[in-house]
């Protein structure tokens, strides 16, 4: 029996989509977490190499593999609980569809990841790609109450739960968030929600990067507390010059007071955007990163943001940059080479700044790795964790690269 026949026998005819991927790797779309477990258990037995895909709009679907496992049929939202501000969603749900369903119940997931609107929730969690709202609402992990994932040998592992606090057992959710699929396929996510903000206001200021960096410092010094506080390159913002965009979200009283404080701290230089303008600005910026072949993020001390942007400009250019200077987070997009990425990562490592490769074509990912080299002594821990969760090395994930 061919493997296609085996998969059909296991999961049913409609789970196999043999001709669908550009590189001819057969694609399997299990319709339930149990089906994912069944498939990966079989993959372990057969020694199949598996690449994991969501909607295919963020990481290129180009890793060499025996089969592609897509989560796109895991698209149900079993629970939205407005009174508890929590939800449970399958990993293959598109972020825009989830956002709409949440909004219909008066709730909000305060994440605005880079990429197209149809990107899956699982992709956002697996790559821990937070957007500008990370300034006010934290990284992806802060929005997770628990996850269920399937290991490389087909075990369903639940971690966390669906309540607001939980310290029962080790927090394996933290491994799944930002693990780039090295430890398992995320199939179900329990989310921490917020009530839809009663008021949501974005204000912008154009200027030179140096000028805006100073303004950003003034804002921080005045203890203005925005939801997002993002410095965007001209290409990203589609403006003539750099753009500092500040977003406030919350009660009407809070937004009004914070907006007043911003104006006071910056001499009234900011311009308020209409809701449709603000929506377009944030959405375009997020989507722009999906049009660049390579994106990476760096995380540093806030007071070194400016210096790091100089370094990026010097080594890889600064055409596509989105930075949260208040928390030292920078996302870069563009075209570059393996050698340049390696050199940049070495330079940054010397400054104790990690570079996480978020997306790139397979040859670049394979060479550079999402994480590259670890700090001393950490490599064996990561290797041990990978062996634990993927003993047969079923998952095709470029974790460390080849340097």
């Amino acid at each position, binding site marked *: 029996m061919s493997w296609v026949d085996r998969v059909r026998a296991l999961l049913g005819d409609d789970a196999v989509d043999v001709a669908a991927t550009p590189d001819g790797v057969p694609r399997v779309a299990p319709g339930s977490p149990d089906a994912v477990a069944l498939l990966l258990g079989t993959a372990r037995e057969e020694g199949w190499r598996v690449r994991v895909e969501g909607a295919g709009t963020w990481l290129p679907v180009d890793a060499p593999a025996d089969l592609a496992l897509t989560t796109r049929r895991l698209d149900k939202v079993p629970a939205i609980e407005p009174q508890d501000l929590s939800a449970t969603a399958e990993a293959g749900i598109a972020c825009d569809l989830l956002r709409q369903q949440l909004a219909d119940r008066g709730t909000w997931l305060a994440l605005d990841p880079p990429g197209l609107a149809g990107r899956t929730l699982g992709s956002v969690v697996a790559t821990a790609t937070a957007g500008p709202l990370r300034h006010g609402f934290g990284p992806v992990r802060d929005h997770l109450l628990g996850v269920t994932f399937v290991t490389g040998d087909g075990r369903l592992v639940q971690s966390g739960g669906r309540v607001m606090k939980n310290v029962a057992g080790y927090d394996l959710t933290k491994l799944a968030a930002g693990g780039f699929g090295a430890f398992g396929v995320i199939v179900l996510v329990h989310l921490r929600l917020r009530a839809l903000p009663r008021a949501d206001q974005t204000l912008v200021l154009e200027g030179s990067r140096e000028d805006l960096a100073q303004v950003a410092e003034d804002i921080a010094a005045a203890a203005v507390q925005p939801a997002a506080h993002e410095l965007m390159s001209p290409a990203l913002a589609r403006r003539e010059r750099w753009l500092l965009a500040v977003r406030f979200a919350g009660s009407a009283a809070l937004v009004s007071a914070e907006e007043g404080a911003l104006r006071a701290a910056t001499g009234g230089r900011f311009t308020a955007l209409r809701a449709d303008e603000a929506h377009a600005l944030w959405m375009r910026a997020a989507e722009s990163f999906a049009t660049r072949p390579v994106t990476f993020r760096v995380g540093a*001390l806030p007071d070194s943001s400016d210096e790091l942007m100089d370094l990026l400009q010097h080594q890889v250019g600064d055409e596509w940059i989105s930075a949260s200077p208040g928390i030292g987070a920078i996302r870069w997009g563009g075209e570059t080479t393996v050698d340049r990425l390696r050199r940049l990562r070495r330079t940054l490592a010397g400054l104790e700044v990690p570079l996480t490769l978020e997306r790139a074509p397979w040859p670049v990912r394979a060479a550079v790795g999402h994480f590259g080299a670890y700090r001393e002594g950490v490599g064996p821990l990561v290797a041990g964790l990978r062996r634990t969760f993927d003993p047969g090395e079923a998952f095709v994930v470029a974790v460390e690269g080849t340097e």
Partner: protein
Amino acid sequence: MTAGTATAERGGSLAAALGEIVGARHVRTALPERVTFARDGLPTHRHVPGVVVLPGSRDEVVAVVRLLAALGVPFVPRGAGTGLSGGALADDDAVLIVLTRLNRILAIDPVNRIAVVEPGVVNVRLSAAAAPHGLYYSPDPSSQTACTIGGNVAENAGGPHCLKYGVTATHVLGLEVVLADGQVVELGSPGGEPWGPDLVGLFVGSEGNFGIATRIRVRLLPVPRAIRTLLADFSALRTAGEAVSAVIASGIVPAALEMMDQSCINAVEDSVYAAGYPRDAAAVLLVELDGCREEAVAADADTIAGILRAHGARGVLSAADAKQRERLWQGRKKAFGAMGRLSRDLVVQDAVVPRSTLPDVLEAIGRIATAYGLTVSNVFHAGDGNLHPNISFDGRVPGLKARVDQASGEIMAVCIAAGGTITGEHGIGLDKLRYMPLIFDGDALAAMRAVRLVFDPLERVNPGKVVPIHACREWSGVRTHPGREPGDPRAGARGELSELAR
């Protein structure tokens, strides 16, 4: 060999070797000294450690751990011993490494709002040290005047103000960790971005099973410029629970949203911590709003007060000044101490439920208390759904402790049935091992054990805690240790320690 002779022998060569590292006066071998470390904040577990050692520096910790690794001796890290799950207790065959002498605040960086501390720094000391910079450390467990930040990291501690600002894991950016074999690794990065997989997030809350954090890099927050503290009183527990959901759904996130029931109110009011809570209330809610803008906080407080009244509050008091606010909070923070008046012993329970189920769960807990003839007082983080049903009892009464255990089990079952979990901030330790299979299946438990083995292949660090090994399904790659019985990770080490003693 009796326990007494084993201890005497252990007090010989091992104590001498430890004494060479830390100085003889920082090694405790006499029984009366060791007994003082036999409990944590929970009165129901008592384990006398074989030897107690108090290293005074990171290098001493490394040397002690390497010595114990060479000898195959299990050890348990411990902070101030305020934990509430029996997590920092060591048996007679293990060494208790007490970290309270590592109590230096190594750096405060006001520009980047970061502090670096040793694990033995008492929680509240860090906020005091950061205060001149207009900053503070947000996680505020009720024991914050005594508990250490190392212990907070091990337990992923919470506190009232975690509702708005998040638990310990949210605030830990990086860690220096001494692994079971004495190797030192840096996890995370100075700015807090994970360096590879999020091992900092994995370590926080691992209850000492993955090693000893010797340096902890934490985020500091600006001290709020505006604060409003409201006390709302209710004539029924259910109404108070319903008001909690209404506040949460409003979209305004209070800094804290705490509930105390009548039994707790009266215990506080009878004590030196009397805060002026209304004794005839079935429950009170303590709600705090904070922020940087006076006008916004005031407006949000008015909105919340309106919601509380609309949902059945008989009255809503707004603290007139800082003094009154502190008094209201002192009653809440010292409630556990005040309950000491109710009886000789107190079991502080910890569970979390979806917030919307609070009214039903509180009523069910009341029924369990009645059925078992026990006094249960509730004082808890209502905004998070994090319950603390506290059972007062006299452990000397024959059979009463068994009844308390049974009632605790039933309370846990009610919380699990409501979609909740068995601990929100106190941890599993020893106390909740038996409940773990109720919320995790064999694969999830086996995965946890397998992760622990990556950090501590011989399961020598805080053995016997967190994961009930008997309930783990088989996991590929998980080795069983020669000479040990399944379910007893310390069996092999016992033999080695006896050998050492000879």
